[in-house]
């Protein structure tokens, strides 16, 4: 499973519906609130055993994928 596919799974579960997501999808479009964002970051950290930090300023899903891949590579 690619990072994008895994992320799609996590974001869809959080939203409670199947989301159609590409690397270009922006977080503004997805409209998650602060509680969702904390939940999403925690799920990613658990899934990949990485630490992403508290304050991520990301605009697209592709940027988050890159951030995850970078953290995994630096483990």
């Amino acid at each position: 499973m690619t990072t994008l596919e895994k992320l799609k799974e996590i974001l869809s579960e959080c939203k409670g519906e199947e989301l159609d997501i590409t690397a270009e999808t922006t977080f503004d479009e997805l409209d998650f609130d602060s509680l969702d964002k904390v939940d999403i970051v925690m799920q990613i950290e658990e899934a990949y055993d990485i630490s992403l930090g508290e304050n991520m300023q990301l605009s697209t899903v592709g940027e988050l994928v890159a951030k995850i891949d970078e953290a995994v590579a630096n483990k």
Partner: protein
Amino acid sequence: MSENRVALITGAGRGIGAEIARTLAADGCDVAIVDYAEESAASETLEKLAACGVRARYYRCDVSDFAATKAVVDAVVREFGKIDILVNNAGITADKLLLRMEEGDWDRVLSINLKGCFNLIKHVTPYMMRKRYGRIVSISSVVGMMGNAGQANYAASKAGIIGLTKSVAKEFGARNITANAVAPGFIRTAMTDALSEEQKQAMYKLIPLGSLGETQDIANAVRFLVSDDARYITGVVLKVDGGMYI
């Protein structure tokens, strides 16, 4: 048949917790009992739950153990499919005047009574968040509002539950998760039965309704707070004390 709601109740092997378990089972909830005692000590409770025609399972766990409570919550979700209701009822006392209270007395009571609530809420809320539904009720005590000589540790833990409950209510309200507390006064138990008539009379004078409460009175309050009738109620402390603390 509509799907049963699933309730996880701590300290439900006997006493008030067992009454809450039986009451929610009678309303059609499947019940996961979490208790520190041997399962055999809860056999009577489990039989009563089975008689209600609901699924009931026993999980032995020390609620003050963070990792163990996570394992239990995950197991309940695996076996029941979800957790709709959490009732934090597990609690102990180690009564002593503060002058005689040891550090261990304080730590033990706070760990089980207060940290135990945190542990369960912490592990249950991610599941409730995704379901956009949750009902959390924690058993506090009027002693947490009044204070009580000889119960500094217990009163502090029960007051702590109120602060925890109100914070959880604020954090998770947007996910349709309510968090409330029930604060019992004097409830008839084996402990109060052992009191002398003179001691009981002194106790009754403190209670406007003039009698001790029953475990069923507490279970009724919990049943209300987890029901749809209470869907717009969160962050409250419902005293069930016959008016002892007004």
